[in-house]
């Protein structure tokens, strides 16, 4: 059941991205071109999504548990960290360079364009690189401070927002 829901959610998500214009890097770059010929239309994508999700979120989390899973898995991190800011800054640079963020890129893979194919391959490589880097830095800090509490608390929770 959880797999069926995930697949349906993924499908609706992709349709939303395609209909909204997010799968068109030219439009995305136009939206980010605040200093030039700014095309603000894509603000309505986030606007529409946030209105629906903000209302739904408040109703849904009143439930004792989700319909399928035994509990909600929601982000618990509260602190604004250097990783959060540096990572988001790098993501923004990549977004402005390519015009793709992860969802629209993956949705566009089936269109068969070389550009999207290359973007998705290097994006997955970037994600893999982060994993290697995180593992190395966890090992480094574990060697520096023998108490394993810090990497254990940080590691699994870090990815939870997304």
């Amino acid at each position, binding site marked *: 059941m959880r797999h069926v829901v995930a697949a349906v959610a993924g499908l609706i998500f992709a349709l939303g991205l395609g209909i909204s214009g997010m799968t068109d890097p030219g439009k995305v770059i136009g939206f980010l071109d605040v200093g030039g010929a700014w095309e603000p239309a894509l603000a309505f994508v986030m606007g529409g999504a*946030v209105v629906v*999700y903000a209302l739904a979120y408040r109703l849904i989390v009143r439930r004792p548990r989700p319909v399928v899973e035994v509990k909600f898995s929601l982000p618990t*991190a509260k602190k604004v960290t250097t990783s959060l800011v540096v990572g988001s800054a790098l993501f*923004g640079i990549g977004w402005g360079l390519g015009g793709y963020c992860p969802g629209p890129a993956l949705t566009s893979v089936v*269109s068969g364009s070389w550009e999207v194919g290359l973007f998705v391959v290097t994006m997955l*490589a970037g994600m893999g690189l982060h994993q290697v880097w995180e593992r190395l830095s966890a090992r480094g800090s574990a060697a520096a401070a023998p108490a394993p509490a810090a990497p254990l608390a940080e590691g699994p929770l870090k990815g939870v927002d997304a």
Partner: protein
Amino acid sequence: MDASTIIAASVGGVLIGLSAAIFLLFNGRIAGISGVVGGLLAPKAGDWGWRAAFLGGLLAGGALLMMLYPEAFPAEVPRSLPVIGAAGLLVGFGTRLGSGCTSGHGVCGLSRFSVRSAVAVGTFMTTGAITVFVMRLVTGG
């Protein structure tokens, strides 16, 4: 910016919000693409299937769009291949380091009034705008 663009953007946005709401209601999870897909690269026991299913749905949605609304995918992308390759690396690494992208931080995080997500969105919007500005200066477009 004409009315049809705004309507399409809003309808698409509502669908994205609806998808994220369904995912939260049934599976109790945040629909953040970089997190869902990134987790596939380091699979933990019992944590793989739903991620693969979500990705499968995303790809199936792309195929459906290709059949019914191919205009969603432009024939031309305004960037060269080397730039796109570098962009992918930055997006992949950055979204994992920053714990989220446009969906996890943007849609879901802002809706939950998360301070972390607000900081993330402000940061990637700013560096994205600066990058586009600099690219226009460099390429002269």
